[in-house]
């Protein structure tokens, strides 16, 4: 069972590039496991836990590329390492063929593009503050995708940004839209008249995609990072973004997407909402409006998009439990006829942290406490996991790009008598995996077959965040899941409700009635 490894000194590659190599290596015949990583301390731990550490890899530093494979024969190892070398050489050739000389620093990039107005920064968290500070000092707005930036550093960055009237979107900002251009993980949506301020990347993606489905579009979607409404950060970017959208002539209504603000920050936000001079829809997941609070408060991302559409169209909005109750009833009836009585709990496997949070908020009143890594600790048969959380993304790309972790967990669920239902999100868009439904559908088929061999059933319910113009195509991705027997709902909120209904069929009378 040989492990073969090689180290290329001073050969930095980003995590997406490295994932591409690791995926190619794992697909080679005779390769059991493969790693392509930089030699950081955290990655050395990963190599050791995967049984891929060798004396050579242990000597690698953070600037050194480590390639390691667990292979059936030495010959396979040679082939795999040569394939990796060819991958990087091909990439270098493609880059050189453009004739462009890439700058090594932000400052040298600015000499090439002196009128730049935005820096998009996605370097490892330990280095992100320095790059963001440099960008702000040079007068650039910042989209800061990097996570693992300390709260103290975030405060420092945002203070500087506010002082200079610059946006510092992030840290840990997954998505933004500026002038209709998507940054980070972004669905392809039309430009329109709804502006968004979002402390959640997937929350913004969900709202933008639903707006697109309803025939509206986004003027700007300003990301602020998940901690912006904490008492320490004080809503610095949310307030600046609200001011910007209030003054933006293309924005007719504003949607604020967040978790509940710290009480000290809430009053500042309310003041800004009152001052906006435009209709504001507030979706602070888990919070309810205080008496007299300004704006229209809603409880789900789908409601936020629908309320915003009604606002700009001057129509009346009423929240709905399901957009097509009859279809939900038919699917669930068919499920129960086929699968009989359900055993085991619910397992939510999410790539969108906010979608996971929303699902828990919807499901707990229906099925009881839900354990996992989203929100307050709880115990019981049900679990929801946000696979984009730090503990799952150490040394690897986000699960919207690297789908392997979730696919593996879906297959594990098929072998577990404790899981009777899986609830999933699939997030499409630019920068995401090119065809996530293909491997997810395959994993679900395997899991269901495994459960059936053990005399159990495994129900799969999902929603897809995306649009037809996304590179993956919404309809095609839904069709793949549908063909694998997955019940696909039009939104994450509806998927969570359908899961609750499948686990508690006696709720059908109230949930499938005329309204809430």
């Amino acid at each position, binding site marked *: 069972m040989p492990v073969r490894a090689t180290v290329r000194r001073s050969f930095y590659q980003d995590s997406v590039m490295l994932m591409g190599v690791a995926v190619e290596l794992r697909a080679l015949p005779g390769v059991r496991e493969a790693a392509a990583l930089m030699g950081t301390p955290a990655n050395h731990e990963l190599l050791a836990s995967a049984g891929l550490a060798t004396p050579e890899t242990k000597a690698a530093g*953070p600037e050194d590329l480590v390639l390691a494979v667990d292979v059936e024969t030495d010959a396979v190892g040679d082939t795999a390492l040569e394939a990796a070398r060819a991958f990087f050489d091909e990439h270098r050739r493609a880059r050189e063929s453009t004739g462009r000389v890439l700058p090594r620093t932000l400052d040298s990039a600015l000499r090439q593009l002196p009128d730049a107005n935005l820096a998009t920064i996605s370097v490892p968290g330990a280095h992100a503050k320095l790059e963001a500070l440099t960008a702000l000092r*040079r007068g*650039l707005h910042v989209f800061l*995708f990097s996570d693992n930036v300390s709260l103290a550093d975030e405060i420092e960055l945002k203070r500087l940004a506010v002082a200079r009237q610059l946006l510092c979107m992030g840290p840990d900002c997954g998505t933004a839209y500026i002038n209709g251009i998507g940054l980070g993980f972004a669905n392809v949506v039309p430009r329109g008249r709804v502006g968004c301020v979002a402390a959640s990347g997937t929350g913004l993606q969900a709202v933008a995609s639903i707006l697109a489905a309803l025939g509206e579009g986004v003027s700007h979607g300003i990301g602020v990072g998940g901690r912006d409404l904490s008492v320490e950060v004080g809503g610095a970017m949310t307030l600046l973004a609200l001011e910007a959208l209030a003054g933006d002539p*293309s924005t007719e209504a504003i949607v604020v997407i967040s978790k509940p603000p710290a009480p000290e920050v809430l009053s500042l936000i309310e003041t800004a909402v009152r001052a906006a001079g435009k209709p504001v829809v507030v979706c602070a997941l888990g919070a309810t409006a205080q008496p007299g609070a300004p704006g229209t408060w809603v409880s789900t991302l789908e409601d936020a998009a629908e309320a915003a559409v009604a606002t700009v169209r001057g129509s009346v909005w009423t929240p709905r439990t399901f957009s097509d109750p009859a279809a939900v009833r038919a699917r669930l009836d068919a499920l129960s006829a086929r699968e009989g009585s359900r055993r085991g709990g619910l397992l939510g496997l999410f790539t969108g942290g906010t979608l996971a949070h929303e699902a828990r908020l919807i499901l707990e009143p229906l099925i009881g406490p839900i354990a996992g890594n989203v929100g307050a600790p709880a115990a019981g048969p049900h679990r929801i996991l946000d696979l984009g959380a730090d503990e799952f993304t150490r040394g690897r790309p986000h699960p919207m790009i690297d789908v392997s972790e979730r696919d593996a967990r879906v297959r594990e669920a098929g072998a577990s008598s404790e899981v009777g239902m899986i609830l999933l999100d699939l997030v499409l868009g630019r920068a995401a995996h090119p065809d996530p439904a293909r491997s997810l559908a395959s994993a679900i088929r395997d899991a269901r077959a495994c459960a059936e061999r053990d005399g159990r059933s495994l129900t799969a319910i999902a929603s897809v965040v995306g649009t037809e113009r996304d590179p993956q195509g919404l309809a095609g991705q839904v069709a793949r899941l549908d063909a694998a027997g997955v019940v696909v709902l039009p939104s994450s909120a509806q998927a969570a409700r359908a899961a609750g209904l499948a686990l508690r069929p006696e709720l059908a009378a109230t949930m499938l009635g005329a309204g809430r």
Partner: protein
Amino acid sequence: MSLASLLGQPLRVVNVGLELFARELEAESVVVVHVDWRPPSGAPNVAALLARLGDDAS
């Protein structure tokens, strides 16, 4: 530079980090310069001091 320098103006982007993001912006016809970034050598505080050289005066 101010908020008006971004909203309503064409994006002109310096991308530091994942090359994927630069390619996605280019696909949307955005002018982007990708930085061939690598971790700075030496202690982080030295890198921070070096980065301050050349800061604007404002």
